[in-house]
């Protein structure tokens, strides 16, 4: 049974990680038009417990994308400088959508694993019930 509970907790950690990735993607998309907003990127790493890797996945620290902010020409904008430009965000919607899709696929794969482990342990329990 330890293998099953291991597998279930690993699949759960995977779903959690993908969900928090999706949350950051939606934050980025929501702030596409926020002046001066830097895109947030999260990293995944293996969880280490008592010196050995447990196989669970953990979300590392959130990093800000250091790439150049876009310069938008709009002299009427309150934040525009003398030349009529202001700094927009460095969010690229195409990248965010692709990232969201990838997160969704990985989430589904983890969910499938979770479901399969559950089915396997249910079958085992059915054997006991007879």
């Amino acid at each position, binding site marked *: 049974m330890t293998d099953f509970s291991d597998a279930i907790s690993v699949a759960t950690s995977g779903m959690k990680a993908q969900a928090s990735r999706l949350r950051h993607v939606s934050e980025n998309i929501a702030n596409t038009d926020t002046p001066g907003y830097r895109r947030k990127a999260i990293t*995944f790493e293996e969880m280490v417990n008592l010196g050995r890797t447990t196989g669970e996945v953990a979300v590392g620290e959130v990093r800000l994308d250091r790439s150049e902010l876009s310069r938008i020409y709009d002299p009427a904008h309150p934040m525009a400088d003398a030349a009529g430009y202001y700094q927009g965000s460095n969010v690229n919607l195409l990248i965010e959508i692709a990232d969201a899709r990838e997160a969704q696929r990985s989430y589904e794969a*983890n969910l499938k*694993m979770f479901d399969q482990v559950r089915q396997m342990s249910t079958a085992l329990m059915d054997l006991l019930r007879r």
Partner: protein
Amino acid sequence: MYNSLDLFQTAGAMARHAGARQAVVARNIANADTPDFQAQSIAAFKDVYAGSATTTMRATRAGHLGGQIGQHTTDLRQTVVGEPSPNGNTVSIEDEMLRAVEVSREHNRALTIYRHAMTVLRTSLGRS
């Protein structure tokens, strides 16, 4: 009592093996986006069984009874050789799905054999 019968022992080892494999597959899929993660796998039961039947069975049971979590699975785990993606990850979701289906069928087969053998025993005892 059931464990003294070879059939039950083999079916039990097969189910345990499927469980261990499933844990490894779940681990790979959870880490499908972790940079530098190396995918791992456990060989199919028939290959492990054919390799050395007695030692494998004993090892599987020792890990089970001794309560040392994952001891026998670490011994059987191998790193999968695969094309790494740009972030150094070698997990292929498609391959893992294939393995997951294989594992599920292996587990089902083991449980079916176990249940069937139990039915035979029950019938011989006059219960059904």
